[in-house]
């Protein structure tokens, strides 16, 4: 497993200084993204970047549960799409006059707004629903699964099945949410501005950057300190944590729900920037791709998740523009390469392997990252190897 993320407790003043530096860095990068980048790149590319940054927010959520807690969810498309649908439903019904229905309803002979559309007339409700609905769905699903100590690949398969189920549900319900066609947001108005217009798109871009920074701050806060150490303990040895008197279920449910909420916000931001939300967001492949962004960037490194999401998508849009037919080959090879050759991802490799190499050149010992350094302790090491052999 990854041997990376022991959060070392730092002495008061030094920690404070480091925190200030980090906050300064995040704000500086956000300002560059907001002020400099729009002046340099064209509107089309800026729109792409905005979408990639929205995807980077999901990647942060996945890193939280996979990188830090060891739960591999293959179903994050559910939460992503739920957030997108919540916002799109608000936009659909608030663009119309009183008593009118969205156009597609007449195609299926629906004359009255279905009950679950009603609350979306209200903006505050919608803004809450964007992250609370995904969080609740994730929490319920997580509770039902984790309560029974279902974990590992079982959990992954169940999330994938849940994804297929949600896809079928949204895809099949033509008369409730327009099924396969999805909901378009381009021509609707949000707070009096047309969503598809360039000024609105620019505002959404800024909003995305702000939310990315906020999501980073949230994940950083959650993964440092006591809660973060709990998550890492669950990842590295859940039984041992249980024997120490903690119940992992609550922590896992909570972190899964938070991750779902983050995905919901990302979905809403992505939806308004791409102009449509459809069941395609719950494609099996899309959800697995989210995981690979994190794997490429580096598990359990939050920066890695963001960079992975942005650069893999950038590479995808460049490559699939010029050679659409080899993109799948390339993507498959990326999966294989990252998993076999770069298990810590690019950022993880830079941070641990390369820095270790430097340390060796200067005659220092390896940096110690995992608390009871499993690899170096002969007894523990043997035990761990045995556990691995048993699999």
């Amino acid at each position, binding site marked *: *497993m990854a041997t990376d993320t022991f959060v070392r407790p730092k002495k008061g003043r030094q920690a404070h200084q480091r925190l200030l530096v980090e906050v300064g860095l995040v704000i500086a990068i956000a300002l560059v993204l907001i002020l400099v980048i729009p002046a340099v790149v064209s509107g089309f590319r800026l729109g792409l970047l905005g979408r990639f940054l929205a995807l980077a927010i999901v990647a942060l959520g996945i890193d939280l549960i*996979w990188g830090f807690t*060891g739960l*591999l969810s*293959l179903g994050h498309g559910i939460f992503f799409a739920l957030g997108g649908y919540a916002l799109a439903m608000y936009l659909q019904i608030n663009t119309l006059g009183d008593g009118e229905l969205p156009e597609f309803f007449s195609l299926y002979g629906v004359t009255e707004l279905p009950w679950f559309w009603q609350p979306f007339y209200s903006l505050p409700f919608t803004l809450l629903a964007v992250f609370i609905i995904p969080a609740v769905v994730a929490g319920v*699903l997580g509770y*039902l*699964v984790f*309560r*029974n*100590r*279902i974990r*590992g*690949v*079982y959990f*992954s*398969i*169940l999330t*994938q*099945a*849940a994804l*297929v*189920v949600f896809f*079928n*549900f949204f*895809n*099949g319900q033509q008369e409730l949410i327009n099924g396969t066609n999805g909901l378009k947001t381009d021509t609707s108005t949000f707070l009096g501005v047309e969503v598809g217009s360039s000024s609105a798109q620019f505002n959404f871009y800024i909003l995305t950057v702000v939310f990315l920074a906020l999501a980073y701050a949230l994940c950083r806060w959650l993964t440092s300190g006591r809660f973060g150490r709990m998550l890492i303990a669950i990842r590295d040895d859940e*039984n041992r944590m249980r024997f120490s008197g903690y119940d992992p279920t609550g922590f896992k449910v909570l972190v899964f729900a938070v991750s779902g909420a983050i995905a919901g916000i990302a979905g809403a931001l992505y939806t308004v920037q791409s102009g449509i939300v459809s069941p395609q967001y719950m494609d*099996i*492949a899309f959800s*697995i791709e989210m*995981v*690979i962004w994190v*794997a490429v960037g580096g598990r359990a490194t939050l920066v890695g998740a963001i960079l992975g999401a942005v650069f893999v998508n950038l590479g995808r849009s460049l490559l699939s523009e010029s050679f659409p*037919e*080899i993109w*799948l*080959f390339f*993507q*498959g*090879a*990326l*999966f*294989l390469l*990252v*998993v*076999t*050759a770069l*298990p810590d991802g690019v950022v993880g490799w830079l941070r641990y392997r390369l820095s270790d190499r430097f340390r060796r050149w200067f005659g220092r010992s390896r940096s110690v990252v995992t608390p009871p350094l499993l690899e170096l302790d002969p007894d523990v090491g043997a035990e761990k190897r*045995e*556990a*691995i*052999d*048993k*699999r």
Partner: protein
Amino acid sequence: MIEGLIGGLFNGISIGAVLLIVALGLAIVFGLMGVINLAHGELMMLGAYTTYVVQNGFKAMGESALNFYIFAALPLSFLVAALVGLALERGVIRYLYGRPLETLLATWGVSLILRQFVRSVNWAMIVGLVVLCGLFFGGRWVLQRSQRQVAGWMTAVLLTLSVAIAVAVGLLLNQNAGVAFSRPWFSARNVDVTPPTWLRGGLALGTTLQFPYARLFIIVLTIACLAGVYWFLQRSAWGLRIRAVTQNRSMSACLGIPTEQVDALTFALGSGLAGIAGCAVTLLGSVGPNLGSNYIVDAFMVVVVGGVGKLVGSIVAALVIGIVTYLVGSGTLALLFTSAEGLQPLAAFFTFFATTSMAKVMVFALIITFLQFKPAGMFPQKGRTVEA
């Protein structure tokens, strides 16, 4: 009423048989190695394409030969899928034991590659692949002869070089060697396999009941596969070794069982069964690169519900899931409650779920409920090793 019930049961069982034949290989591999193979569906697809090729070969031999292509296609599909599975195990998965989540992602990568492979495979690509294998394995052989230990970076350089040369050769052939080299073997569109004449139509029973021969054939094939696997696992020497490694890997290794060979063999066996499943489903619909993904998630559910390490769990789970899916999805249950007095809300409830896709929603909800009571499946493994 009785006829409707029997018909429903038959359809449910036939859905369950398809699920079971898909899940069988998956269950064996998962039981032994704890590895989830997301490329299982693509191995199925390879089996289906093999069937298509065999069928075309027999078509060239004449109409009378066409009736029997399926008996050649079944072993060939098994063989092709098993060989690809073997290569997959030797090339990728054996480096990832003990990291089940990474294995999941790696096999997904393989499945993407396989899907694109059948879309764009042509002679130029085959030549490129042969060149790649020749250069890489030849180079590694030379390195191993000359060096005491081959460093990681040498392998990386060798791999990069061979890939570059192979891609260059492939592209050159593709552009300059004429249509014979650059024409894809299969079009990107789905292809159709025509069942032999004796599998068309159905067995009529009474006035309304009809059992299609193709479905009956799949049920028989599933039973035959089950019997074969059962015999292999319970009666043969290698089956004994597989069962021993499934129970306790370290102990088996101590007693001299070659666990690596057991792993490779089991993986090949599981993949081969996927190939047979692929051959079977060609009787039901057209063959395309995405054929596998239609079945794979349901097959996973069979493994989860059935529990690991026991075939009987998979059998029961597949049948139950198949029957429930059919009864809900076809509206049989809804109809049953509509006729009864006082059960109208229930009837409305089941009518809402009476489509194939909505039936999946309901089955998933039932599976989650089931797992609340039996988290490890119907027939869980017992003992101290389970928790590790």
